[in-house]
């Protein structure tokens, strides 16, 4: 058995919207999609990284009261949550593919420090860096 981080999550404003974004536009696949009443446990996974799941969580009951949920939604929407990094083998090709799918890029691919990086956001406001793996 290997040890390490299994799930880390982002808050999203709408799980259906987030699912469509991460699966159809970015290239993740669904790992777990389980409902219990209003609660929905939803995680996605990058095909080449089977030991890690990215959780797509909506702030709200039963975990958060209304004011807390509103505060968390606001934090995400103003881009205040920490950026995530997606490592890819070819940044420009990944950008082209994702842009064709309608992903909103915040930074064009830029070559620097011996690699290429770009930036995009999910519909909720979570920021991502797309960084090409150093060869």
């Amino acid at each position: 058995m290997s040890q390490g981080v299994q799930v880390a999550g982002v808050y999203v404003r709408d799980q259906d919207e987030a699912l469509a974004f991460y699966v159809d536009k970015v290239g993740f696949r669904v790992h777990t999609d389980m409902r219990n009443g209003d609660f929905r446990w939803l995680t996605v996974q990058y095909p080449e990284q089977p030991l890690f799941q990215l959780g797509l969580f909506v702030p709200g009951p039963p975990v958060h009261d209304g004011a807390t949920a509103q505060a968390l939604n606001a934090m995400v929407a103003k881009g205040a949550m920490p950026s995530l990094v997606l490592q890819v083998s070819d940044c420009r090709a990944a950008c082209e593919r994702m842009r064709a799918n309608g992903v909103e890029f915040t930074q064009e691919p830029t070559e620097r420090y011996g690699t290429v990086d770009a930036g995009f956001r999910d519909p909720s406001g979570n920021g991502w860096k797309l960084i090409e793996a150093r060869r």
Partner: protein
Amino acid sequence: MSAMSDAPNGQDPQLLRRLLRAKDRIDGASHEDWPVSRLAQVSHVSEAHFARSFKEAFGVPPHRYLLTRRIERATALLRETPLSITDIAFQTGWRSLGTFGRIFRDVTGESPGAMRQRARAAERALASVPACIVSAAHRPDLRTAVLEKRRRAAGATKDAQPTKEIQ
């Protein structure tokens, strides 16, 4: 201003997401001109509401945010490239070298040349942190208007006229 928007997180997340788009556009092209009319259009907000909403969301007026990003980018170019200070001034959106040098000093407390020397000496320590994070860590924390900062530095004792944000 409504009581609602005085609350720490009182702004509508949908509005915030649209304001973030304007902030992202500044981030993506800080060398360009960003008049309020252009930013308001990106956010689908009226010009009258844009500046106030932006400041409420991000803590600084949009123009001051633009200045911090330009200085941040100039600092990165000073640190990472052999470009001349003149080239850096024009590449980061200033129309005159004098304005660049003056605002750079006002914001960071040192001249572009001095910053370049000091930063180069320290750069090796940060090699393993992603570049964008390093850059953001060097973003100037501009809490007051540039003119205000300049006046304080000059030791003015009077509370003068309300400061007009520098263009």
